[in-house]
């Protein structure tokens, strides 16, 4: 039994590229069917065009590099920060640094500049109110937890790459405006080292487990968060 027009239109709307022989035959079975099929083809071409998204440069290379640089393989690799002065001003090249997962950051300073330029501003803009539960859930993956005073002011949280594997990117709301905190579970830093790049300041924090970088506009905004961050991100107590 041949397909009726109503059924044909339904299939056309659901799967216009369907190659079922009966469907293909129906496309040419009458002028009415043919016209509907051609209109659907035109719409589909526009839909495919609308849905097409250009690929970022180096996407596949970055994916390929993941295996090479995964924490499994780099376990045991010790990262030691460069000896640094108390305050370091990082010279910023006009070209900037490309964000690459396969980038071997030579220092935590280079990593921070690279990372913040990649999505620091975007993350600050999208701050929309993560719950304290989100914060604890994400941090628990690294066997640390956050004190409520800190967890409650985190407005965005997500995983992110760090020099030594996966870490956490947070944006916190403070009286001085939004401030970025990057938790680096396996990276050692020189405590209280200050960096300045672009229009932001960064303060490194040595934690009981891993380290963090506080990044924001102005020394005051990052310094005032130092004590809270250091006291708040702590190893999760082992339950007996």
């Amino acid at each position, binding site marked *: 039994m041949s397909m009726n027009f109503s059924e044909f239109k339904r299939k056309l709307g659901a799967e216009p590229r369907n190659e079922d022989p009966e469907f293909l035959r129906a496309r040419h079975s009458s002028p009415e069917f043919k016209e509907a099929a051609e209109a659907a083809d035109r*719409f589909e071409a526009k839909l495919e065009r609308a849905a097409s998204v250009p690929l970022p440069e180096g996407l596949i290379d970055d994916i390929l590099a993941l295996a090479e640089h995964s924490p499994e393989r780099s376990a045991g690799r010790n990262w030691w920060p460069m000896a640094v002065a108390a305050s370091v001003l990082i010279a910023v090249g006009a070209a900037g640094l490309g964000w690459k997962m396969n980038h071997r950051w030579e220092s935590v300073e280079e990593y921070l500049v690279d990372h913040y330029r990649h999505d620091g501003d975007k993350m600050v803009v999208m701050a929309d109110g*993560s719950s304290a539960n*989100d914060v604890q859930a994400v941090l628990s993956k690294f066997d640390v937890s956050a004190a409520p005073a800190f967890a409650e002011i985190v407005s965005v949280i997500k995983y992110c790459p760090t020099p030594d594997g996966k870490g956490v990117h947070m944006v916190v709301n403070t009286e001085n405006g939004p401030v970025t905190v990057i938790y680096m579970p396996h990276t050692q830093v020189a405590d209280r080292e200050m960096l300045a790049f672009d229009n932001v300041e960064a303060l490194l924090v040595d934690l009981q487990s891993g380290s963090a970088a506080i990044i924001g506009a102005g020394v005051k905004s990052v310094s005032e968060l130092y004590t809270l961050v250091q006291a708040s991100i702590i190893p999760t107590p082992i339950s007996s």
Partner: protein
Amino acid sequence: MPVMNTEAGRQAKFNQLAQAYGSDLYRYAMWICGNDALAKDLVQETYLRAWKALDKLNDTGAAKSWLITILRREYARTFERKVPKFTDVDSVVVPDDRELEPDDRAEIKQLRQGIMKLAPKYREPLLMQVVLGYSCEEISKQLDISKSAVMTQLFRAREQLKQRLRKDGVTGNVHELF
């Protein structure tokens, strides 16, 4: 492809997955999270998890579906509550449409906005079909809903997009679409 247990074999298998599906995964991620940086993070996180669990993938024919499952879970787990809703087509990086006729450009833009505004239950199967090239059967398996439900959602998704074009009064070729 035979299962290779050596490190080189594992690497080769991973490379094949990256080359074959990395682009599709990025495009899909881009549409579901609407942000270039997040989409890249999502794809990288997906492949990182895939690398760690690669030994569990015995059927390479199911690799694409396996990767999409990882990506969807990762999105739900990590980003779903943090990503702002789409409000502007400019939030999605789109190809240069300058070579198109003005009417076509307007329609494409309206369609992009329409895709963004579709409810997830319509948007997701539509993107699986249009971006990933999935059949209704494959979408049904991926979303764990009946094939009939998938067809209904796809039909309604397209109808909503067409209605949007009519409602927004895009002129010119739009009348030829229906």
